[in-house]
């Protein structure tokens, strides 16, 4: 075993053995009395400034809408609902109302399912004051529902405006 001390390595603050490795643990992911799983956190992490800017939640609106259109074409409502919930929630959390507004402006209601349209309206309801394109989106949704589901249009849209 070769030890390198302070005198040999002035830049290193601690004496270090080159062949040293941390002792193996029987259950490396389990900690505490309850032995519940917790992912091992790295002891050293990069300073925040080196991690870069946080990725915008919706970097490409066209890509985001294409994904949503694809989900709607599958005729399985839950994935489309979840996608809208997550996308809009992330935008709201980041207070990125401009992107959210552009999303509503560019959304092609003819390619959206009823679930997706209503989820978009419900999710953006709380921020309607800062989303000028929402009113236009609402009108496009209403126009489509009045043609396709005239009997249910009022009950689907009640309170959504």
């Amino acid at each position, binding site marked *: 075993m070769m030890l390198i001390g302070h005198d040999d390595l002035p830049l290193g603050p601690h004496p270090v053995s080159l062949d040293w490795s941390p002792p193996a643990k029987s259950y490396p992911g389990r900690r505490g009395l309850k032995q519940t799983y917790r992912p091992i956190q790295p002891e050293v992490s990069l300073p925040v400034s080196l991690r870069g800017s946080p990725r915008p939640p919706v970097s490409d609106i066209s890509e985001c809408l294409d994904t949503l259109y694809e989900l709607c074409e599958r005729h399985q*409502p*839950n994935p489309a*609902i*979840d996608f809208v*919930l997550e996308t*809009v*929630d*992330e935008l*709201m*959390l980041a207070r990125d109302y401009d992107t959210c507004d552009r999303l509503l402006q560019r959304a092609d209601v003819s390619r959206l399912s*009823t*679930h997706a349209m*209503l*989820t978009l309206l*419900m*999710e953006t*309801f*709380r921020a309607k004051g800062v989303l000028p394109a929402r009113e236009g989106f609402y009108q496009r949704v209403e126009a489509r529902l009045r043609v396709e589901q005239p009997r*249910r249009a009022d*009950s*689907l849209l009640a*309170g*959504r405006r």
Partner: protein
Amino acid sequence: MESETNMPNLWRNKSAHEVQHLAIVFSLTPDSHLSLIYVDDDQQPRWLHLAWHHHVRERPVDENYAWGEPPLEPELRAILSRLCRRIARRYVGQRRSIAYALRYAGGRFDEMTGEFLCEDGLGLTCATFVMAVFATRGVALLRRQEWEPRDEDVLWQEKIIELLKNARDPKINEHVAVVRTEVGCARFRPEEVAAAGVATALPLGFREAESKGKAIREWLAMQIAS
């Protein structure tokens, strides 16, 4: 059978597997309790409720329950059921989740984190938990402003204060002290919120909710007795 025919046709003691997306559940255990059943991705109905102070519970269910579906289009119920799924993932199993308190002033859940946002008040009851889930998506079950304090609710509120003292919460003394100031507030009784499950339109006013709620409670008590 008489009580059965008197009940609005949406409210029955029936299998949880018949729930379409989301339903409001009323139970007497023997105290009245309100909860939700939502249907998850695997079509398994799941029972979600605020059981007690910082105890949000959720589990799959197969039994029969007395439940009703609020008068919302299926698409809207589907969206609300996804919210229930989010709330369950956020709160179930957490040591601190949603506090139990008496007064409800329109709090709701944050859509991103599932965090309960108290606009006023200190927490929720089982009944106002259900109201808050719906309020999150802009669906008001009751016209809250029509509810006035009722003398007979004070006894129940005092009982809750006594029970809260035994709750496992290191900060329970402080919590009890402030919840005590809410005694005497308007109470949204579980059966009155349950009445939204048999309503023809929302939100329900006080008179309608009170009479329908009373009918639901009596009907269920008769079901249990028989």
